[in-house]
């Protein structure tokens, strides 16, 4: 429920915005003619691209390395929120009706998120015997997103801000994982700064085939000629676990370095720019975007 609060808040703002909606300056109510009635409905299609940032939030934590003489919490992964840029490309298909837009936006998205572990082994009776290691894990996950979004144009000017909300289902396409290991070893007779080649593994089996979530966001439409430019920002809240619970321990290379995925959900901050084209015209000279 906590994860849904932002969405509920945005929907509430949208409701208020609808109530406050004013007609554009100089607007005069007149009897709708056939043209106006026709243009109450419009299809838009276009492409959007942009960057995204990802934050993973663990639910149940798992660890292969199980302490016998130190706290289990010391094995917890430290997640970095919204640290690594990903990217996405979206095909937007929107049906507009009287200021509302019903949009299907299939997206190919690469998301990246990171976490790290730190471990220390030492000997209280011999300060010279110590090994500190840091494991930095980066996950690159490709998803095909299938979102259904409702948009609402707040004003009807050339520059048209809008708000949006919806749901999505993301299908796993591919995933891989890189682990960088670095550290300091003082047990070899001196201070030895350790650095090794990163461990790179295919990680598709470690992720579940898909997850779902909710979307809330806002954006701007800018009408230019017969096309519509879009600047879109949305926050996508993952509502289901992305980890494949059956395969959590099956990757021997990761098990060897003590890594097992937590149960986790991911949130995405997605920003896109793009261009939409109207699909319905009364005549070749008519500027659909003027409606």
């Amino acid at each position: 429920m906590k994860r849904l609060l932002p969405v509920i808040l945005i929907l509430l703002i949208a409701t208020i915005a609808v109530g406050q909606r004013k007609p554009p300056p100089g607007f005069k109510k007149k009897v709708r003619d056939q043209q106006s009635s026709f243009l109450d409905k419009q299809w838009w299609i276009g492409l959007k691209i942009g960057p995204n940032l990802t934050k993973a939030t663990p639910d149940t934590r798992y660890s292969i390395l199980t302490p016998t003489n130190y706290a289990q919490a010391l094995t917890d992964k430290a997640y970095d929120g919204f640290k690594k840029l990903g990217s996405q490309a979206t095909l937007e298909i929107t049906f507009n009706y009287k200021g509302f837009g019903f949009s299907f936006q299939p997206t190919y998205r690469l998301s990246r998120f990171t976490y790290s572990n730190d471990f220390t082994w030492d000997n209280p009776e011999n300060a010279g015997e110590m090994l500190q290691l840091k494991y930095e894990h980066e996950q690159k996950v490709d998803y095909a997103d299938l979102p259904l979004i409702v948009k609402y144009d707040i004003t009807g000017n050339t520059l048209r801000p809008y708000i949006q909300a919806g749901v999505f289902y993301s299908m796993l396409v591919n995933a891989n994982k890189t682990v960088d290991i670095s550290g300091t070893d003082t047990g070899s007779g001196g201070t030895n700064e350790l650095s090794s080649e990163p461990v790179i593994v295919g990680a598709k089996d470690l992720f579940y085939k898909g997850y779902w979530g909710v979307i809330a966001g806002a954006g701007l439409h800018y009408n230019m000629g017969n096309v519509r430019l879009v600047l879109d920002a949305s926050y996508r809240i993952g509502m289901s676990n992305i980890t494949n619970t059956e395969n959590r321990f099956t990757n021997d290379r990761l098990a060897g370095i003590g890594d097992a995925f937590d149960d986790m959900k991911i949130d995405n901050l997605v920003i896109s720019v793009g261009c939409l084209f109207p699909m319905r015209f009364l005549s070749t000279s008519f500027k659909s975007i003027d409606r």
Partner: protein
Amino acid sequence: MKRILYFATCLLLLSACSNDSDPEADKANFVRIYDSDRYNTSYTPIDIKQTPDGGYLILASRRLDESNFPGTYILKVDDLGAFVSEQLVDEAYVNPIGQLIPLNESYFFFCMEEVNLQTQLVEINTDGEIIQMSNVGGTYPTAATLDGNNFLLLSYDNGNLQTVVSIVNPEGNTLQASAFSVGAGDAVEEPIINHFLRTGRQFPFQVGKTSGGRYFFNGFYNYTFSLVFTDLGSGGLGVVQGQQDDGGITYLAELPGNSFATARFNFGDNYFLPRATLGTTGISSSTDLGGFTLPELVDNAPVKILVSTIKDTDVIVYVSNTKAGQIGIYVYDLASGEFLGSKYLGFSNPYEIGAIINTADDGLAIAGTTYVTGRFPRITLFKISKEELGTIF
């Protein structure tokens, strides 16, 4: 209203796509490495048993700073493999040996008193806590197993240069014992003592009893590491000789129908014999047994053999250490001895086999040693589900 209903229905459908953890699946399949943050500690599992609560008891040896012998360590974990407790047994009690033997709601194992080398019988509860210790007498215990309501103990009597097979009751009293000469002179004793000090080859000592009532032991006899069948009396010996300390039987598991699944080593080479007929009387040589050669295994590899069931097929499971630093699992059909498939555990850091058991959920649990960061020997536990075993063949 209709739209709201549609939306709610969609949300419910999406909820159905959720992928929550299943505690039963988490119990069925996991990997754990039990880590200490002490730089200079090391642990080596000897045996593992599943306790009635679904958890596991692991008997292990540990490095002692003040002794040439390995100390005794008992680890209790729950059914998810999570750490529950550990017992760092008093450093006076060293050289723990397998098996960890369940009897009357307790678990028993043998170890040795460091100063006088006397064998001790230790009784622990299902949480790994010591209930009592009994002095058994005799020296250098090497292997033990259950024999009815008593225990069979194989030990080495360094005073008389004899291998001794004893029947010991749960109170630690020796009911019967038979001794077998290892031969005269220091040369034959040297590899035995090096085994205990862990400065030399670790020999696969074993003791047991066949369904036909014959006792057997795998140990030193007459200058040679041999598999010896005996009635614990004066006669009726059957000896499968090795090659002094360079060859012999690695492990023996009895199969239905008076046959055995066994493995042998010979000057570093390793051979698996999923269905072997052994001479339980008279003298024979292990080198005549043949077997499947496995060059991927480390020299003189330790081998454990378990009769199990995978995909409704009775199978013989061999586990051993590969040169690649993995634990190899090799599955053979019990009826025909035909090879069915293999699986390898571990990567990155080296892994070594300790013990293997069948679990209550028809899976397997394998306790081994892994070297965390390539240097710290720690106990690892692989729990393999019935479903994952089914992918082997």
